[in-house]
Structure formats: C-alpha cells, structure tokens
C-alpha cells in the first residue's frame, strides 16, 4: 500500500509528538523515500523497535536509532545516564510503541499494534514481507541519525 501525503504527515507528526511530549527538541526530517527492496538494504541502525500492525492494515513499523539517541533519551526521561542495554532496550521499545500509538489517531482504531519487539544490532538483511512499498523517513535528532520505516498492506 502506497502511503498518501496525509499518512506521511501523520507519521511525521506522531514522531515529533513523541519528542515534544518529553520536552526534548524536535527531530529534523529528511526526505522520505520508498525503499527498493531488491537493491537497497533496510537502513537499520544500532537499536530498533519493531511494532507489528494488524487489523485495518497489516505490516510493520520500525523506529531505528544510533546509540546516542537512545542514551540521550534515557537521560531526558530518567534523569540519569544509561548503564547498560537493559536501560536502552525499554527506551527504544517505548519509543516504537508511543509513535505507533500516536499514529492510530490518524489511521483509526482498527489499526492494531502489537507490543514492541526490539532488535539490537544490524542484521545482514531485513525486510517486511508483502508490505511494499516500504517507506523510509530519515531524521536526525541532536545530530544523530534515526529512521522511521513503515510497510503496510
């Protein structure tokens, strides 16, 4: 399913809302693009939170960030530095959950979201099956990279 302009705007707003609700600076978005699954690798970074989507739509949403993004968010939310992965993993999971939850206000209550699964590290390849085209929304936050990846049928 090709996402409409209003779908993409809703995803941008859902992501911005996550940061502003924490009192953190807004992210800066790059130009969204459709991934060519045959020639381009999915741009996963160090920590990725994945939400499976079912109900009115089927597919998945991933927020993937460089480590300093998650470390800084832990500092903002908890007021102390992350000591290990055990502090970072819940943060990326919560981020994926909140952004997906925010997106429900646009996609509707039939947009069912699973609990987050977290992927640490970068696999050789990654893809959503049957959910093409896959849209990538690049962003930077405090100078560090992150990507929102979404594929829906």
């Amino acid at each position, binding site marked *: 399913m090709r996402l409409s302009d209003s779908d993409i705007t809703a995803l941008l707003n859902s992501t911005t809302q996550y940061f502003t609700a924490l009192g953190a600076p807004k992210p800066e978005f790059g130009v969204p693009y459709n991934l060519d699954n045959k020639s381009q690798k999915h741009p996963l970074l160090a920590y990725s939170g994945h939400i499976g989507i079912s109900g009115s739509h089927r597919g998945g949403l991933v927020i993937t960030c460089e480590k300093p993004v998650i470390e800084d968010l832990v500092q903002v939310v908890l007021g102390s530095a992350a000591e290990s992965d055990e502090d970072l993993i819940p943060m990326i999971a919560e981020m994926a959950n909140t952004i997906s939850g925010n997106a429900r206000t646009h996609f509707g209550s039939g947009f069912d979201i699973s609990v987050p*699964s977290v992927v640490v590290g970068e696999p050789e390849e990654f893809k959503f099956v049957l959910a093409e085209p896959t849209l990538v929304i690049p962003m930077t936050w405090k100078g560090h990279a992150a990507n929102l990846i979404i594929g829906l049928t």
Partner: protein
Amino acid sequence: MKQEEIQVFINGTISYFAEVTGEKAELGIPYTKGPEQLLLDYSGHIGISGNRRGGLYITCPREMLADVTRKILLTDEVDDQSIFDMIGEIANTIAGNARTSFGSDFNISVPTIFKGKPANFRIVLRTPVVVLPINWKGYQAYLVVGID
C-alpha cells in the same frame, strides 16, 4: 503462557512440517529463554495484537530452509530469495495455525524477516519468552514465543 497454550504452538509446528513437507518435526522440551542470543541463519518474526499481545519468531539454518523449499517447489534449484520468502511463510503459517486455538481476535502482522546473526544482533520479545526446539530431518531450529 499456560502449558496448554505452549502445546498449541507445538502442535501447530508439528502439523506444519507434516502437512507441507510430509516429514514430521520433533519438538524438544520447551524452556524459558535467557538473555543469550538465539538466532540461526534466517529468522521470521510475527507481531501479535488483539486478544493477546507480543510476538514470535522462528529461526532456522539455511540448509534446512533450502530443504523445505526444495520439497515445496519440487525443484533442486533454490535461490536466496526463495529461502528468504520461505522463513516468512513458515512464521506466518505457524502463527496463523495458532489462531484456530486463540480465536479470530488473535491478530497477526505480516512477517518481518532477518538474515544473519552478527554477534551484537538479537530480537528481544515480551518476557517470559518460551523457546521450542525443533528438530526436522536432523536440522535444529527454534520457535521463540513471547506473548502476554
């Protein structure tokens, strides 16, 4: 998960391999996963929502997937793309089979597929996470389930 719910996944996995390949899989004793990495060459993940929430993934060695693919497609030539698709299909079918027991509100996402097992790579599911060891034709694979 209750014991009878774990049994749903055991039965679904056994019937998948028996029906699709004609050769039964044997399942080992389920155990609760610790923090260790449990990934083989290819992994297919399904997110679950609705009346239960969480996810599952199945992880298999490449040769096992090539063998399953050969049996299904009736060909000796198996390429990487077919193998990539096969792990998603297995995850999707096992999760879909579970719907017959968990009900139609047991909503499953499309599969997400991961290739590779770099040292720092892991899929973190809802805890407690149950591991079901699968043995099919001597190949070792794992079904890993973490749902509320």
